[in-house]
């Protein structure tokens, strides 16, 4: 059997922790819970992460980098801003569908437990890869004349607040239709709200 590398082990912990934190909650989940889920001793776990708080911050960075890379790939495509909006929404909803623990963690752990993230993960520090790509998206959209010039956070809030809200409703099982069903209309709404007038 092929030996599991340290990097693979670390990713295993990240994946297990994301699931446990988003299902059970941050405070209820213990390090022994996570160690048990990945099949390692508690002692060995500490070789990878020194504490639960450090792991929690690493997870935010991990999700932010994942999202950032996905959006960067869309930003680099030779497509219109309207198409990019659709692609970003598709990517985000697919992620909510296939890796719900990532978005759940972001919404339910990161945004709800500021005391954990206040020191060392405040402001843009842990979410920079994701927010930077959204900045690039908006910058390019205005520069090529597709989007109207306005304050970044007004536009960012409209875009990501909308998506976050929909994923939250989906997670609460309130949406009558699957997320996929809303892609077209949401893309259109966001584009109409942001486009050049």
């Amino acid at each position, binding site marked *: 059997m092929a030996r599991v590398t340290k990097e693979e082990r670390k990713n295993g912990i990240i994946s297990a922790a994301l699931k446990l934190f988003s299902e059970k909650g941050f405070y209820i989940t213990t390090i022994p819970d996570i160690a048990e889920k990945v099949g390692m001793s508690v002692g060995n776990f500490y070789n990878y992460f020194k504490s639960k708080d450090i792991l929690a911050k690493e997870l935010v960075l991990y999700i932010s980098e994942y999202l950032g890379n996905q959006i960067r790939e869309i930003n680099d495509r030779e497509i219109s801003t309207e198409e990019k909006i659709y692609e970003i929404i598709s990517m985000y909803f697919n992620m909510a569908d296939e890796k719900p623990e990532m978005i759940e963690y972001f919404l339910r752990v990161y945004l709800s437990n500021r005391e954990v993230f206040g020191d060392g993960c405040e402001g*843009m520090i842990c979410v920079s890869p994701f*927010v*930077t*790509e959204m900045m690039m998206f*908006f910058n390019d*959209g205005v520069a090529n004349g597709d989007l109207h010039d306005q304050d970044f956070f007004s536009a960012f809030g409209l875009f990501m607040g909308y998506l976050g809200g929909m994923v939250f409703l989906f997670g609460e099982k309130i949406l009558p239709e699957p997320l996929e069903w809303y892609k077209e209309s949401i893309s259109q709404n966001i584009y109409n709200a942001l486009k050049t007038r």
Partner: protein
Amino acid sequence: MHSKQDNKPRLLWLQGVTCNGNTHSFLNLPYLPLLLDKFEVLYYPAMEALHSFEEISACKLSCDVLIFEGAYDPLMKRNGVFMKEMLAHYAATAKHIVAAGTCASFGGMFKEAASHRNSGILFNEEEMNGPLLKHKKRIINLSGCPIHPEWMGYTLSMIANDQTVITDELHRPVELYSNLAHHGCTRNEYFEWKVDTKGFGQKEGCLFYEQGCRAPMTHASCNKILWNEVSSKTRIGTPCFGCTEPDFPRTELFQTKTNMSIPEDVPLGVPKRSYLTMAGIAKTFHIKRLEGKLIDYKTTD
């Protein structure tokens, strides 16, 4: 017998379409008399020289160093003689040709007024297709609106001492123009931590975010070789307008062009993505010392 005076390089200062800004700026050079003593000044617009302009415009003399100030206009006459004829006559035998100021270097302010007609002597903005193209190897551009007196002082000293002036792709001396105006700015700490200035003329805050400062994108040593040996625009609270670059003058000089709050231009050579990452993280922190008046800050706070 020849006197020592005869061996001095002969210097001639001609003017195209100009506001005289460079002529006047050069007069502020602290060691001007010492420098000019190394030359035989045939004509200079703002002080007594060996010849009158009538004699110069007759095109019977020649010079070693030709300084041309102002934009080139093919239809302009001085003393009834086309300036282009005078320029061609003196440029043909001059060993060094110096464009004094941005108008003579790239067209500048006066090209903006008559873009179809006016240009620099070698460049038309960034394009090298000016009237003195065939003399390009002998042309040094000293851009700036106006030139810094020390930049002309450096160039003429080098020439007087038979030293080679190494230039960049826009024919500007690298010694003077490889720095950015940002280098040496007293506001660098505010730039690092992304703290905006709160008004004109303030000692505190960076001028890059709101006030259109072009220093991080502008080749100039204004904050390294200070003006009048004491200060610079950014030090006293006025943004750099990028006056040494071929695209000067830009419009809306006191505004930073942004796309959804994101600066359209970022510091020279820095990828926008990298800049935004760095800027976003720096903005996260609030440094109390940088948020108020410097003189009010107490370390015991």
